[in-house]
């Protein structure tokens, strides 16, 4: 009777899922309620979690709940600590969910809501979640080793080096593009700039409180910090209304970019307790709180999605970034569907806390489902805006024209009507002077969130909600930025330490300053170019980031596929092999287009050539002629970088195929590095506190 009931429930969930997905896919012309997206997501996620993830855990990975995990065997009360699974889930989710799933879907909304939504749903359940879960499992079986170490042990030195280089490059590109998103949100917005700037001293106050005033009282200090952050949103509005004070925070993009670089440098050399650790606490609370609030607001309010299912921009002429639907939607939405960066958290960090292997499904697969849901909410927040407004906020001036009249005429001519008055009213409501050409995703997401929150919790506070949303994104973008710069610094010190041991000492001041400056210089360069680029910079940097992130995912899936072959599980090799193949296809074809396309907005070389011709024929205004040589150099550099990424990808794929072939042919391969079984003593009696 009970099993019959269960079956009926699962059949109903399946029917709901099919109805919702086909409803979303086939809807044309009419507005569609956002609740259908939520219904589609929840049913797809539950079916995948209940059946696919369980099957992978039981049949492919054969998780063994009698086996002691590294947390149990190596328990040292510090980093290896057996921890309740809900707590581990919380830590894991907080670590994997950054600004990526908010920005990517917002940009990809230029194709319409459908392509991005389908990729977020199915990419996650078949690709991203599988990658996270399998990596978590493999690292758990290998004393919580990192992805790089596993690649070296299981495939060979080539794999290990590729993982290291891949991680370092993705960090540089990621930080640059996130920095650009923040700069575009702050430029000529005293309110946003003042609020974001205030987050720095607030983090320091919290840091002092936790370290010296009341050591270890994390929650007290965090509560204080959150209150101060909320006050800073209000105070920003006050500064914005003050005729003198507002001038202090009213800056061009370039000036703000220098500030972001100075901040990144300071954060990398200052002690963690002062800035990094407290900022991370605050950003985690604000992030979890806001995402929950957004979910509640969408469910209460059930907003209508106004963006069409697909726009004409699937042909590659989109204003936010150039490139056809295939492969660029899959590159643009990396986090939220599949994100290689997660494999760095799933190996190394999380396995040190895991009590039992049977929780791997919930933590690895489940946390990624939640991240995918965050990406879906970002898609909803972007598509509930009037499409004309969405494009007016996100289209760079280099595409639609600097004058507002030109921009609205151009956008309206695409079939997305919008007027200057409409944009002005909206900007006034949000407490901004203008919302045109704020490329990058953060402002349009903030407008979307503000209008959702505003109608759920009071229209009068729109400007506050808008700047709260900007603060919310900025605070965890800056957290990723300073944490990433620091990690980059450690990696660089580690690498340089091979040649000059003194450089490898992480506390030797000259080495700290030198390597931090190098890392900041690396991403600072791309940020600088992005800011001076009249086409917005995001159109160049975001695809590079997507390619780098997918490269890292491909490395993780290569390690997993190689291990499956070596564990005599060849018949299940498609579980990681198919997502890997898909990543290789999309990354390679995106790279191919970015390198060879004749379209000046897609091909890096074509873009460089076009600029060079225009420069030579004197087609540019003096100020444009001044920056053109830098833009040309940058486009060529980006082309070579793309080529490097894709070469690295193929190298590691071939290395994996080589090892697999040798194993299947009975030749010698690096042995499986799995730690032998030792029985768990933390059995059912374990108090799950």
């Amino acid at each position, binding site marked *: 009777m009970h099993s019959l009931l269960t079956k009926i429930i699962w059949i109903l969930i399946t029917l709901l899922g099919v109805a919702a997905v086909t409803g979303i896919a086939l809807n044309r012309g009419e507005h569609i309620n956002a609740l259908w997206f939520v219904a589609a997501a929840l049913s797809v996620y539950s079916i995948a979690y209940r059946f696919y993830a369980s099957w992978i855990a039981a049949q492919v990975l054969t998780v063994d709940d009698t086996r002691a995990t590294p947390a149990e065997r190596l*328990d040292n*009360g*510090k*980093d290896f*600590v057996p*921890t*309740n699974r*809900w*707590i581990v889930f*919380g*830590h894991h989710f907080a*670590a*994997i*969910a*950054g*600004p*990526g799933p908010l920005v990517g879907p917002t940009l990809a909304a230029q194709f319409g809501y459908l392509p991005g939504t389908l990729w977020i749903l199915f990419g996650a359940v078949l690709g991203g979640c599988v990658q996270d879960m399998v990596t978590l499992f493999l690292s758990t079986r290998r004393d919580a080793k*990192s992805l790089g170490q596993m690649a070296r042990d299981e495939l060979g030195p080539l794999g290990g080096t590729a993982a290291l280089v891949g*991680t370092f490059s993705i960090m540089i590109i*990621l930080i640059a593009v*996130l920095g650009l998103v923040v700069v575009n949100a702050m430029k000529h917005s005293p309110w946003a700039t003042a609020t974001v700037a205030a987050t720095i001293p607030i983090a320091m106050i919290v840091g002092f409180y*936790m*370290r010296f005033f009341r*050591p*270890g*009282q*994390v*929650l007290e200090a*965090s509560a204080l910090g959150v209150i101060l952050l909320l006050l800073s949103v209000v105070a920003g509005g006050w500064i914005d209304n003050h005729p003198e004070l507002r001038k202090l925070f009213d800056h061009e993009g370039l000036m703000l970019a220098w500030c972001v670089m100075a901040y990144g440098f300071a954060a990398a050399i200052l002690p*963690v*307790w002062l800035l*990094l*650790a407290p900022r*991370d*606490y605050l950003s985690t609370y604000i992030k979890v709180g806001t995402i929950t609030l957004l979910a509640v607001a969408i469910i209460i309010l059930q907003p209508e999605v106004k963006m069409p299912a697909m726009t004409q921009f699937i042909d590659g002429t989109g204003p936010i970034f150039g490139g056809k639907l295939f492969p660029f939607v899959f590159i643009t939405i*990396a*986090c939220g569907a599949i*994100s290689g*960066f*997660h494999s*760095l*958290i799933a190996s*190394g*960090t999380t396995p040190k806390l895991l009590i039992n292997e049977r929780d791997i499904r919930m933590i690895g697969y489940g946390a990624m489902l939640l991240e995918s849901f965050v990406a879906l909410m970002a898609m909803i927040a972007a598509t509930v805006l009037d499409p004309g407004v969405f494009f007016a906020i996100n289209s760079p001036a280099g595409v639609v024209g600097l004058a507002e009249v030109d921009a609205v005429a151009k956008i309206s001519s695409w079939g997305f009507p919008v007027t200057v008055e409409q944009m002005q009213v909206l900007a006034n409501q949000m407490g901004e002077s203008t919302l045109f050409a704020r490329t990058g995703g953060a402002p349009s997401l903030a407008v979307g969130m503000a209008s959702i929150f505003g109608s759920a919790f009071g229209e009068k506070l729109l400007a506050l909600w808008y700047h709260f949303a900007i603060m919310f994104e900025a605070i965890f973008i800056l*957290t*990723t930025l300073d*944490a*990433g710069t*620091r*990690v980059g610094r*450690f990696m660089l010190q580690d690498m340089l330490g091979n040649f000059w041991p003194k450089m490898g000492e992480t506390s030797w001041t000259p080495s700290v300053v030198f390597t931090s400056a190098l890392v900041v210089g690396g991403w600072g360069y791309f940020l600088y170019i992005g800011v001076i680029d009249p086409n917005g910079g995001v159109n160049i940097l975001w695809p590079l*980031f997507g390619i780098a*992130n997918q490269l890292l995912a491909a490395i993780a899936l290569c390690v997993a596929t190689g291990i499956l072959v070596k564990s005599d599980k060849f018949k299940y090799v498609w579980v990681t092999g198919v997502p890997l193949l898909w990543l290789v296809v999309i990354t390679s074809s995106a790279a191919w287009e970015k390198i060879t396309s004749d379209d000046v907005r897609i091909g890096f070389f074509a873009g460089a050539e076009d600029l060079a011709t225009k420069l030579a024929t004197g087609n540019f205004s003096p100020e444009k002629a001044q920056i053109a040589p830098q833009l040309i150099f940058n486009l060529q550099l980006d082309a070579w970088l793309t080529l490097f990424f894709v070469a690295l990808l193929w190298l590691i794929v071939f290395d994996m195929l080589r090892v697999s072939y040798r194993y299947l042919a009975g030749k010698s391969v690096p042995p499986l590095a799995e730690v032998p079984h030792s029985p768990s003593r933390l059995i059912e009696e374990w108090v799950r*506190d």
Partner: protein
Amino acid sequence: MLSKIKAAWRVLRRLSGDDAYERYLEHYARNHNVDCLHACDRPLSKKDFFKQWQDEKWHGVKRCC
């Protein structure tokens, strides 16, 4: 209801690391100085423990995109 609130509070403290020192003391009591009669090591003070804990927690990749 009250017990649920208490449980939620415990989860929050655990997630944030608010109770890290208490857990350290428990771990210490369980694993150190079990057999010694005199001249035992003393556990770290809360301030020293927190310093160590915070510095260690921040080594390596901890945040994603």
